[in-house]
């Protein structure tokens, strides 16, 4: 569990680059297999403990995975700690359950089809071993409870209709499952016995012939129940949901508004940010992503299509149209082009676990911001600089509007994000770190690196970056960069060096 962290503690400087290995794949495609649109995974999220992983797909389904080694630990976590058990195994997951979260709908008032595609999944506080999560499509958020339920078998029935032969009236009424009517009316009018009225008296010792049903079988199965549906609050498409640290509220953001909900109340929400101008022609930017601070219940950040991140303080006022802090990178003079504004649009933001840093992803870069420094990012990582000459092509085929997600490691030392050709990149963001790794979502993640003539060595990083760019360019020439296989969604395990990422309908996991 501490593999990487121990090296961090060493005063020697930045942590060693991680050696990533393939761990698992779910839903792997066989060669030539066609991908079904509904199977494409569109959301991914680890829960807070990292014991569970949820994915959502375009077909509106949510699939849950659970950590297999965590279950063993759970039994005797204390023993394991005491015996100084060497944890050599990397975390492994297995399929747990799945359920249909959203169905396609039609909004008759607006003549709009509402896709079932899951845009976001967020885990909520666990209670009593029941798992809770929020899932959202374009318009509706649902609150799910997933719980193991005992399958009940009743082994003993007292009011067995077959035993009551001759009481045709009664037996048939219980057979036909309509006891409500005869409970209300008594067994039958001619016998006029209102046994169930509250005024009748039973013998003081009770009736010995009655007994309770005996329930056996301890088999369990997982049941997902939708507990609440938060709907009709968004005119535009929901792009983010985020839980508050207070455990009772969450936000949902669409292109122009952010709403605040109480988990217990599904019929009202409060609008806290509203960018909608009186005249839609004055619209200059939209909200692209929003997230609550991990610890401060009053702070929340949202990003915009203009490349800025705003931090707002819910304490200041009820409607937070004025931000507390604005994070924006000043534009480099002379660099402006037709694409400048398009590629500046931030597709995702994430708070680091400690809440001090915010990671943002725009089309070309990952940026790390210190919330105490609004003059510019503390670090910028080029994700696929070799695409810059191709922006025109990317604009033509709409790829330039792809929304890549980003993630941070639990220790906050590394960041990761996806790119095209099912590649994703991991960068070290600790001061002095020059770690950059490119992996491919396949069983052989380092394939691209093996091909590259010089594997990055720590001392020559600046050179290797250049070299790599070239090698990828070569690779692009040779293999032709594939803009259709893009790795949009990925998540970093909250406590371990494990990345789960999505290539179309497949879920790959890598560990280090």
């Amino acid at each position: 569990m501490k593999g990487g962290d121990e090296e961090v503690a060493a005063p020697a400087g930045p942590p060693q680059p991680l050696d990533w290995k393939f761990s698992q794949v779910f839903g792997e495609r066989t060669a030539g297999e066609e991908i079904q649109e509904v199977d494409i995974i569109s959301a991914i999220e680890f829960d807070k403990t990292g014991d569970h992983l949820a994915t959502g797909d375009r077909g509106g389904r949510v699939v849950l995975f659970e950590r297999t080694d965590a279950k063993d630990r759970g039994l005797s976590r204390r023993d394991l700690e005491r015996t100084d058990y060497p944890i050599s195994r990397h975390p492994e997951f297995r399929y747990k359950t799945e359920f249909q979260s959203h169905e396609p709908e039609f909004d008759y008032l607006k003549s709009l089809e509402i896709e079932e595609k899951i845009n976001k999944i967020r885990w909520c506080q666990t209670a009593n071993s029941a798992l809770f999560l929020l899932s959202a499509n374009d318009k509706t958020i649902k609150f799910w409870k997933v719980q193991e339920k005992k399958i009940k078998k009743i082994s003993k029935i007292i009011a067995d209709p077959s035993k009551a032969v001759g009481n045709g009236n009664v037996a048939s009424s219980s057979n036909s499952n309509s006891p409500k009517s005869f409970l209300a009316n008594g067994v039958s009018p001619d016998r006029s016995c209102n046994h169930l009225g509250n005024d009748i008296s039973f013998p003081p010792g009770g009736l010995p012939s009655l007994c309770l049903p005996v329930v056996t079988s301890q088999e369990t199965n997982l049941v997902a129940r939708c507990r609440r549906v938060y709907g009709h609050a968004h005119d535009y498409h929901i792009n983010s949901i985020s839980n508050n640290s207070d455990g009772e509220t969450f936000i949902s953001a669409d292109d122009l508004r952010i709403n605040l909900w109480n988990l217990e109340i599904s019929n009202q929400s409060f609008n806290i940010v509203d960018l909608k101008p009186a005249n839609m022609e004055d619209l200059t930017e939209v909200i692209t992503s929003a997230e609550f601070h991990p610890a401060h219940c009053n702070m929340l950040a949202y990003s915009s299509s203009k490349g800025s991140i705003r931090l707002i303080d819910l304490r200041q006022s009820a409607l937070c149209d004025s931000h507390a802090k604005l994070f924006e990178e000043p534009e480099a003079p002379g660099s402006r082009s037709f694409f400048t504004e398009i590629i500046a649009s931030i597709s995702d933001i994430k708070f680091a676990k400690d809440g001090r840093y915010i990671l943002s992803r725009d089309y070309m870069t990952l940026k790390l911001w210190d919330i105490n420094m609004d003059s510019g990012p503390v670090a910028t990582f080029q994700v696929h600089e070799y695409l810059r000459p191709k922006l025109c092509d990317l604009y033509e085929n709409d790829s330039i509007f792809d929304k890549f997600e980003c993630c941070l490691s639990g220790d906050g030392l590394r960041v990761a994000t996806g790119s095209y050709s099912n590649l994703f990149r991991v960068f070290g963001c600790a001061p002095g770190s020059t770690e950059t790794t490119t992996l491919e979502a396949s069983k052989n993640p380092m394939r691209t690196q093996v091909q590259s003539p010089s594997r990055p060595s720590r001392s020559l990083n600046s050179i290797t970056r250049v070299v790599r760019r070239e090698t990828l360019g070569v690779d692009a020439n040779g293999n032709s960069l594939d803009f259709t296989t893009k790795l949009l969604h990925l998540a970093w395990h909250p406590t371990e060096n494990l990345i789960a990422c999505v290539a179309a309908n497949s879920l790959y996991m890598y560990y280090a």
Partner: protein
Amino acid sequence: MAMIDEPLYPIAVLIDELKNEDIQLRLNSIRKLSTIARALGEERTRKELIPFLSENNDDDDEVLLAMAEELGVFIPYVGGVEHANVLLPPLETLCIVEETCVRDKAVESLCRIGAQMREQDLVEFFIPLLKRLAAGEWFTARVSSCGLFHIAYPSAPEALKTELRTLYGQLCQDDMPMVRRSAATNLGKFAATVEAPHLKVDIMSMFDDLTHDDQDSVRLLAVEGCAALGKLLEPQDCVAHILPVIVNFSQDKSWRVRYMVANQLYELCEAVGPEPTRSDLVPAYVRLLRDNEAEVRIAAAGKVTKFCRILNSELAIQNILPCVKELSTDSSQHVRSALASVIMGMAPILGKDATIEQLLPIFLSLLKDEFPDVRLNIISKLDQVNQVIGIDLLSQSLLPAIVELAEDRHWRVRLAIIEYIPLLASQLGVGFFDDKLGALCMQWLKDKVYSIRDAAANNVKRLAEEFGPDWAMQHIVPQVLDMINNPHYLYRMTILHAVSLLAPVMGKDITCSKLLPVVINASKDRVPNIKFNVAKVLQSLIPIVDQSVVEKTIRPCLVELSEDPDVDVRYFATQALQSSDQQMMMSS
């Protein structure tokens, strides 16, 4: 398995259905749990039914909620108070479930049972349960435990009391905000059972922790605790410990906390006494009335009257009234609306002179407010001002406002004002109800919106009730009947509806002489919808008028309609005829 005697069969089914697949049947059985218990007898209820319920607690939340509720009144069925403790285990498990409403109900039932339990049983069973919950692994258990301390504490021996106080202190510092919120919510109840010396030390330190919590959601619940604790403490302690906290809260960074203070502040005034109120709370309240955040001003404005009632009129005029003036021109309509809904109550507090001099201009400006909600709120409370300043002064400014609202382009606003008209009529009397308002009432009958016409018809009826048939004959009936000649059939239909409503109020003479001819005339209408409505109205008139009139006028008309070419007209005419037949049979 024993054969079930016939009369027991329903009970047996009920018991079996405790485990039925169908949730409705399970719910039904759980709701009849007391019947099952009585059938089983006290001993078997204790030994079989209750353990059975404890084991089968992974049911749906609806069933668990019903179970939690039933168990709260189950003491008689388990053999009385001396056996009450057997009810604790199933409720304990219900205190841990994830669904908040089930837990709340289980806590409520536990409190109800605990309040009846004998002291030694509380110590032997209830307090250990409480301690288990408070140390529970899941936050749900700890959340529930907070609501049980006030039941357990009074019966606990001294050592246990100390332990319980420590436990509660830990809950106030729990990792989970949910637990701290529950601790904050229940602090007042718990504090009420704690002895005075501990109150000042232990409880106040817990309170202190909560007031400094990072989570806004916890701090704002601590605000509620202020008032509760304030009432328990001696005034001087209250001034020393609570007053600074509330003054601090009134300047909290978070508007939600200030909002809570604005809502609660008046409750604290009594606890601290008049002098600190004047020196500290009034300035705090004035600050809230002028808060930057509209939500806070809304809350503060809504409490203006309650706050002023505690102060003397001099203080109110000096400090609060200037703020009220500002609020009446506030930029937020919701603030003005909140103010408008309570400001009328200030009139009796300030007395006639101050009301006329200071308050009346504010009323008038609110009555002219551009937002209808504000005006409506004023109008709905007019009686309070009427008592102070009299009708003449009021009516001059009131009428234009009403007329404006009556013609508002939002039909919901028109609807709201119509619904106030009978109230206004009863408050202000017939003298106020001049031709102007009468004309308005008629105008609504011709509104474009059905709901308005419907409400207008009702309004006409209620006015007739309020002022009597004679007044109605002069001011309402002729005008209404005039409109039966309207070229549009929908308006004619409205009049028919109004007639059917008016008839019972006006009595049989006026009905026969004035209303009935109009209805009979309408039966010749060219629109079938009118004709079958005539049939319906005639049916409603039958019980009102004399039998002779029915025979002479109503029945011939209905007979004619029952041969109408239109099927619906025939149907309703036949129905009316049948009902008149029945009427005759009954009377003969």
